[in-house]
């Protein structure tokens, strides 16, 4: 467990620094690239928790698709190299308050739910088959509901995007 804790510390520090840089950097493309570090760090934490399938999904969806679309969008519109001065606005204290509130709520919920339960020292790697079984048998109704929700959002986006 020592090795896991050590690695978690390294990942957490890297993610923390990168997350702060996302909002403090003076270049919009750099902000997106720091976000890559944060989201890849999340995948690394999933691997530490032996959730292999979730980690791969995290990489494929967030790093491989969503952030690429972010960068694509930024570069198609306006992405100067170097510092830009108009990236900040006056809402930083409000944002800080909201972030602290969110941190408090999440920490409280997690502490309340798990109390002092420890992770098993020899957690077996989660098999993809088990994930499939729980999605398509145990949680099939919520899964379908979310699918319809996403489909609705997709159709909505298409309708808004094409005005003809």
């Amino acid at each position, binding site marked *: 467990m020592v090795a896991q804790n050590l690695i978690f510390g390294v990942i957490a520090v890297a993610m923390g620094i990168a997350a702060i840089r996302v909002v403090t950097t003076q270049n919009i493309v750099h902000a997106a690239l720091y976000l890559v570090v944060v989201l890849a760090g999340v995948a690394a934490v999933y691997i530490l928790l032996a959730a292999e399938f979730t980690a791969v999904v995290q990489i494929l969806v967030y790093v*491989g698709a969503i952030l690429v679309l972010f960068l694509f969008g930024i570069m198609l519109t306006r992405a100067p190299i170097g510092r830009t001065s108009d990236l900040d606005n006056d809402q930083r204290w409000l944002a800080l308050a909201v972030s602290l509130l969110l941190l408090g709520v999440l920490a409280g919920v997690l502490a309340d739910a798990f109390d002092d339960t420890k992770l098993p020292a020899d957690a077996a790697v989660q098999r993809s088959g088990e994930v499939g079984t729980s999605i398509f048998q145990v949680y099939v109704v919520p899964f379908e509901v979310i699918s319809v929700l996403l489909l609705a959002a997709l159709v909505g986006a298409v309708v808004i995007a094409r005005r003809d």
Partner: protein
Amino acid sequence: MPLILGVDLSAYWATTLLKVLVVLGLIPAGAIILGYVFLLKMMSHMQSRLGPMEAGPHGSLQLVADGLKFIQKEDIFPERSDRFVFAAAPIVVLLSTFLLYIVIPAGPRLIVEDLDTGIFFALAVSSLSVLGILMAGWASANKYSLIGALRAAGQLIAYELPLILAVVGVVIQAGTMSLQGIVMAQAEGEIFGVGIIGNPFIFTQLIGFMLFLVAAQAELTQAPFDMPVAESELVAGFMTEYTGFRFLFFFMGEFGTAFAFSAIGATLFLGGWYVPGVEGTLADVLGPLVLGAKIMAVAFFIFWFRFSYPRLREDQLQAFAWKLLIPLALVNIAVTGVLKVAF
């Protein structure tokens, strides 16, 4: 425990180091083999010319000489470039190639890590190269580079879908995503009750194999899908400003990924390293040779298409992916699913 020079080779750090070194050697080796056999020689002979003949017998050391030349060149940054991102971009591309090799099996024990998510992992990390390409195009401070990077991103996202969907048929049939498991599923399969050569999925998943080849061609940005690096319009797209060893990184990334994708295609559809009737240590010796032969067969098709077809226009390229490949892949998945349940 095996001891070499007093080092216990079964220790975790020793095996990991060994695996990293093997993969580090395999990427340039694969790139040089594909580059020499197909890019230099096959294309030349198909066009009734000799190609490079001076360096080594039949020009076989040409790419080694080219590599040495690239290493000696001056490391140039464009004046207005974003230096850090510019320097990091080729490394991101090469990292994606490097991670691909983790899950490819070359024998019963010759695999870096037999991940349960195998093929899914490979497709996920291969999508990381888009990030490096976008970084390269943007940081170069050159509009042609940026256009090339944007084209690459649009193309790679569009063709990632048919690539993943083409593989789903194989995964359904094998019942596992582990590449080692897919090899064994083909080895234990039977064709109409005859199990001598197993059941390579190319017979049952022919549509999947063709979709995989086309989508891989586009993912590798090989002609006819080479809009991102179209030299007549964009010089060399996102690679325009790169020289010396940084360009070499892109070259190794491109051909190293082509080698890895050929290996994945050979594993998914042609039976991988499996030799009928051979087991144990002998399979570990013969496996890499058999897999190598199959890799060359798949790569032959990729490069044959590359030299034969003219470049697609951007709208044709997108329409081809979204209107033909993806619906076809979905039908293939549905049919495979039905047949899997029926039999």
